């Protein structure tokens, strides 16, 4: 601090606070008066009323007799699903393109540059609508479905993936697999005698996968029956389009973050590793990327937060996420303008705060100590 603020400034800040509070009271009074004139009340009791509308895509059971509160849960899960899928896909894609940007190969480098410029300089909403309207809705009917690898079918009704049908012990084994998955990071930190388990904990993951597969009785392939597809799980086109739009857009920004972070690693590190006789690929994986990760995490966090917030653009293509269901359907049905918007904003705020807290925790784990 260069100097102490003057007495006038210190008094002035309370005046500012009074002005802000005054505006808040004025606006609140207006809202109360307007609601009273329309014979409406403010409150969240409507969450317990039956909703009477359908949510076409849901991860947990849903029927039209369920309450608005349950709809909140269903739509929040849909938001979380597309956000998680988007974060994973955009990170992988961004890492790939970011590494391509640094390639010594002229063609690879410039194709990656063109991709980044194209993706970053067009609006995300246009991209999402393009994927939905101009690509997915022009796909053939179920009878002429595209056959993709692993028995997947793609047509105008969406993406059909094979369904795993669990045998009698399926659920038990699935829980065991989940427990193994959760145990992995803890096992990483354990010690076996004098040695740390460390990366050997990763062997738990294939075990978990094997346990899960053991529980599967048979696979149900999606097949054409009559005019429709039977069997398999249908991923609705809205989800595919939103996923593509979110992850491709974010990948352009993540690619630049990756590139900048790798360039920021001191070149002496790379030279030292090369002089020790490591191959270029091993230098990247063992020396450069772990150090670049430290630089990447803070900007990556803000990209993830942007992606989660942008998932609300699903409303433009009727993907049933939090914004679409609450600021759209529920607001129209119940007429609770203030409450629904407050709920949507509050939920996004909470999801963002949790994500940001998790990333900060991770950042603290990998940050250099003493810097």
């Amino acid at each position, binding site marked *: 601090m260069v100097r102490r603020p003057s007495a006038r400034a210190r008094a002035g800040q309370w005046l500012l*606070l009074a002005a802000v509070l005054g505006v808040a009271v004025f606006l609140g009074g207006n809202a109360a008066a307007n609601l009273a004139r329309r014979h409406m009340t403010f409150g969240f009791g409507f969450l317990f009323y039956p909703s009477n509308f359908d949510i076409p895509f849901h991860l947990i059971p849903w029927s039209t007799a369920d309450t608005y509160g349950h709809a909140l849960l269903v739509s929040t899960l849909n938001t979380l699903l597309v956000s998680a899928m988007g974060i994973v896909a955009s990170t992988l894609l961004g890492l790939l393109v970011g590494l391509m940007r640094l390639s010594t190969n002229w063609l690879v480098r410039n194709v990656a540059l063109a991709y980044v410029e194209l993706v970053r300089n067009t609006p995300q909403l*246009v991209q999402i609508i393009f994927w939905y309207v101009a690509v997915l809705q022009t796909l053939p009917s179920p009878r002429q479905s595209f056959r993709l690898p692993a028995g997947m079918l793609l047509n105008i009704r969406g993406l059909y993936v094979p369904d795993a049908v669990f045998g009698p012990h399926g659920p038990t084994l699935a829980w065991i697999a989940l427990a193994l998955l959760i145990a992995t990071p803890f096992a990483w930190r354990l010690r076996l005698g004098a040695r740390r388990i460390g990366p050997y904990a990763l062997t738990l993951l294939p075990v978990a996968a094997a346990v899960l597969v053991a529980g599967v009785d048979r696979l149900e392939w999606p097949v054409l029956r009559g005019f429709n597809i039977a069997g398999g799980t249908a991923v609705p086109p809205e989800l595919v389009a939103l996923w593509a739009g979110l992850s491709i857009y974010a990948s352009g920004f993540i690619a630049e973050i990756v590139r900048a972070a790798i360039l920021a690693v001191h070149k002496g590190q790379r030279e030292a590793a090369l002089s020790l006789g490591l191959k270029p690929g091993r230098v990247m994986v063992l020396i450069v990327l772990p150090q670049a990760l430290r630089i990447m995490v803070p900007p990556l966090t803000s990209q993830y937060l942007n992606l989660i917030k942008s998932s609300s653009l699903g409303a433009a293509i009727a993907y049933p996420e939090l914004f679409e269901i609450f600021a759209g359907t529920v607001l129209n049905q119940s007429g609770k303008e203030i409450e629904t918007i407050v709920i949507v904003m509050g939920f996004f705020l909470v999801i963002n705060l949790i994500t940001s807290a998790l990333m900060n925790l991770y950042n603290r784990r990998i940050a250099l100590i003493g810097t």
Partner: protein
Amino acid sequence: MTVRHSRAELAAPVLLEGMTAPGSATEAAEYSAVPETPRHSAPIGARDVLGWTRKNLFSSVGNSILTVLVLALLWLIVPPFFRWAVSDATISGVSKAACGGEGACWTFIRIRLPLFFYGHYPPAERWRVNLAFVLLALFAWPVMREHVRRRGLWVVLLLTLFPLLAGVLLAGGVFGLPAVDSNLWGGLMLNVVISFVTVAGSFPLGVLLAIGRRSVLPVVRLLSVGFIELWRGVPLLTVLFMSAVMLPLFLPDGVSIDRLVRAMVVLVLFNAAYMAEVVRGGLQGVAVEQEEAACSLGLRWWQMQAFVVLPQALRYVVPAIVNTVVDLFKDTTLVTIVGLFDLLGAVNQALKDPAWLGFAKEGYVFSAAVFFVCCFAMSAYGRSFECRLNRHR
């Protein structure tokens, strides 16, 4: 114009503008004292096409495989797109009948071009929009140029006099200009108008918030932090929706504000939070000695901010501000969802015309291309400014 100064000459204007830390002038002098390494001609192989190809595309087995893979990928994407967009495409004619082939139907775009750029602005009055754009270019030019006197004055004119002139031109109702209701505004023009108002409003507010966030006064700091984090934590779409359905509830009885103005207000508030974070980065880059020096010269607090801290901080963050402007320009497409008629809205409406069904690809590729040109130009300017900054450092 880039080779106007030698390196030693550059140090002088830099120091005058006070944007580098003391000591860099001597550094620059040292650099110029180092004798340049003699230039070698390039190795023979690097000069011809074959050599270039071998060095850049086939330097190793792995690289050769990559090159072939990428070429195959390009072969799958580029020729079909070229056939669709150029060689098989139609642009002549006046109706859907003109488009028969497999290619794109640019006729659809050509006929709707006025709609996409002006919305429903009355055709007889469109010269006013064009004039406003010319004025924008005239006012923005001195602000963006590399060497200009009184840049600050031009910035102030761009943010005050220009909006006044453009507002009179576009809205009309005075000086014999027929009034044009804002419901009729649309197309790309609306994107530009909204973006300009948002930048002009959110920039000063963002500067205030950034200074507030670093203030030693606890109430000011907490209010700024709360404002910034609240707006940055929620999606823009909810904010726009708030302006559309919730804001009218908070106004006194009988007062109603135009839908466009409401959207602009929340866009200003929303983007001010982002601007504030960008400017804060610049403020953190100004050495504390600068403030101490200003203080010891007897400058008052606001004089110190206005004449010493902000001029330096803002220069550092011009590229980041340009990025924010690009982002908010792209985000103006979201007003479509709350029922305003921007370029994307115009495309959506044109696609619903029964006489022209089934041209979604053309419509969205066109709007993406328009945005790409605008955004690419802006980010190119930002990059060139960054190079300029680094050169002066």
